[in-house]
């Protein structure tokens, strides 16, 4: 008996929810939602554009470096067999140069002259290398480059021989 009101309300609950919100309320909520959504993408776009900028910069750097590397055409790109030869010669050249350097201490004058000759050949080699990417006949240039190395090697051999002879001569004279 005490809860007659409660029971009545429970039984007639729907009769109490009879008021209606304005018809345009959803439009307002939708507008708010659009507004909120727009805000987020702005942040997102900022992030994305920053990331895109980084990608673009890296891409440009990569392309630039790639171009530089392309300019630096190697012998191997033209002919594998010549490249092998060249590597072989270069190895021998370094070896001989090291030996020459050892003898050099005894004959500094001579060594200076020898290195000047070698430097001239080296300069020629670099010139050829620079010509290689643009040359219409790359095989020809490569041949010249390998020939240059061969000459360097021959020269070194002779230089070593001379230095050896000079050393021998000096030793004999000392005795």
């Amino acid at each position, binding site marked *: 008996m005490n809860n007659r009101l409660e029971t009545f309300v429970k039984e007639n609950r729907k009769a109490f*929810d009879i008021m209606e919100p304005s018809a345009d309320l959803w439009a307002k909520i939708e507008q708010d939602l659009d507004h909120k959504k727009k805000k987020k993408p702005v942040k997102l776009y900022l992030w994305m554009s920053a990331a895109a900028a980084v990608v673009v910069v890296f891409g440009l750097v990569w392309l630039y470096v790639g171009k530089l590397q392309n300019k630096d055409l190697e012998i191997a790109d033209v002919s594998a067999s010549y490249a092998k030869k060249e590597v072989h010669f270069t190895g021998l050249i370094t070896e001989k140069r090291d030996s020459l350097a050892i003898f050099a201490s005894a004959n500094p004058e001579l060594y200076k002259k020898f290195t000047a000759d070698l430097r001239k050949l080296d300069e020629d080699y670099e010139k050829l290398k620079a010509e290689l990417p643009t040359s219409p006949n790359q095989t020809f240039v490569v041949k010249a480059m390998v020939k240059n190395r061969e000459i360097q090697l021959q020269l070194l051999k002779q230089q070593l021989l001379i230095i050896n002879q000079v050393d021998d001569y000096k030793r004999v004279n000392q005795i």
Partner: protein
Amino acid sequence: MQGSRAAQFELYKLYAKAMYNVALRILNYEEEAEDVLQEAFLDAFTRIVDFRQETTFGLWLKQIVINKSINYLRKRRMEFVSTDEISEVPDEDSFDYSEMQLQAEEIRQAIIQLPDGYRVVLSLYLLEGYDHEEIAHILKISENTSRTQYMRAKKKLKSILEMKGMRDE
């Protein structure tokens, strides 16, 4: 995102009317109730990721609506306990409705006429189905206050209904 907008509209259609009435019962002002409704739906949709299926979406939304409505009331500097009335204890038959011819629309109208403190507690208990422990938590009052406020509200409601009955006769 278009699909989710359609889903949002479905939820709105499903709950807007009930939630509007919840807010309106607490606030008694249509404009404020609509503001609350707008904010509540916006909140619910943007925080839907936070919603864990421990309760239903409806109960969760109702909680948001009620909290927002109470905040609006507080902005109006509404006090839930008026100390000058605290000594008044309603007698038993003052909330005995057994002899009355009850009509939903009359009760609804009478609730609107209740003072803010009474109306909120009575609405939460009688219509939103919260118990006094929950009401105490929502309004940050003691459970006992919620109980006495409810009894007084019921008494007042009865007197309003009686007055109306007398006028009608």
